[in-house]
């Protein structure tokens, strides 16, 4: 069965510092990986997906199949990046999203 692991429950950085939110997955096939974000008092929303290779709000994530990882990175964190971040995957051909437990990012001034 597929599983998503986010090893850090909490992550705190200072404004302007680099940030990396870790995500590892277990799935034997070819998954599609996503990052979702939930800002305070807002609904869960898609941040980025690996297939589009895009950068959203300065965040990027690279799928590393060898290490089964999909870490989220940003070179210079901003206070407005403070939020809950969830890594998720779907297995090829399915729409069912499997989520990790999430990492709460706090960016301090």
């Amino acid at each position, binding site marked *: 069965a597929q599983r*998503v692991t986010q090893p850090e*429950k909490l992550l705190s950085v200072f404004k302007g510092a680099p940030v990396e939110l870790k995500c590892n997955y277990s799935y034997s096939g070819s998954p*599609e990986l*996503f990052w979702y974000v939930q800002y305070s008092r807002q*609904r*869960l*929303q*898609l941040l980025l*997906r690996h*297939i589009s290779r895009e950068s959203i709000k300065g965040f990027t994530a690279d799928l590393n199949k060898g290490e089964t990882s999909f870490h989220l990175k940003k070179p210079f964190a901003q206070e407005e990046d403070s939020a809950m971040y*969830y890594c*998720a995957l*779907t297995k090829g051909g399915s*729409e*069912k*999203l*499997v*989520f*990790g*437990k*999430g990492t709460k990012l706090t960016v301090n001034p």
Partner: protein
Amino acid sequence: EAGVAQSPRYKIIEKRQSVAFWCNPISGHATLYWYQQILGQGPKLLIQFQNNGVVDDSQLPKDRFSAERLKGVDSTLKIQPAKLEDSAVYLCASSFNRVNGYTFGSGTRLTVV
């Protein structure tokens, strides 16, 4: 476009009572999902509909949970009878296709006392 609408936003009930949640997906989205998010955990899929048919309900506790999407648009999720461990946020989401991802509603926060 209008987002995914859910109601109520909050609900407090006693154990063994019943409760129902409602979801109105984005117009044109054929796929609708109900997720359960317990405090400190990521969302867990309860049931997935494609139009008015069930695609996946493997993690739905069918002895107490039920869901329907009769006309392929709105959906209701019911719990009867509720247990303390059902306290969670119940999220509804809809999607047009896999590529574009899901759109989530604001959720219903259920507290069972």
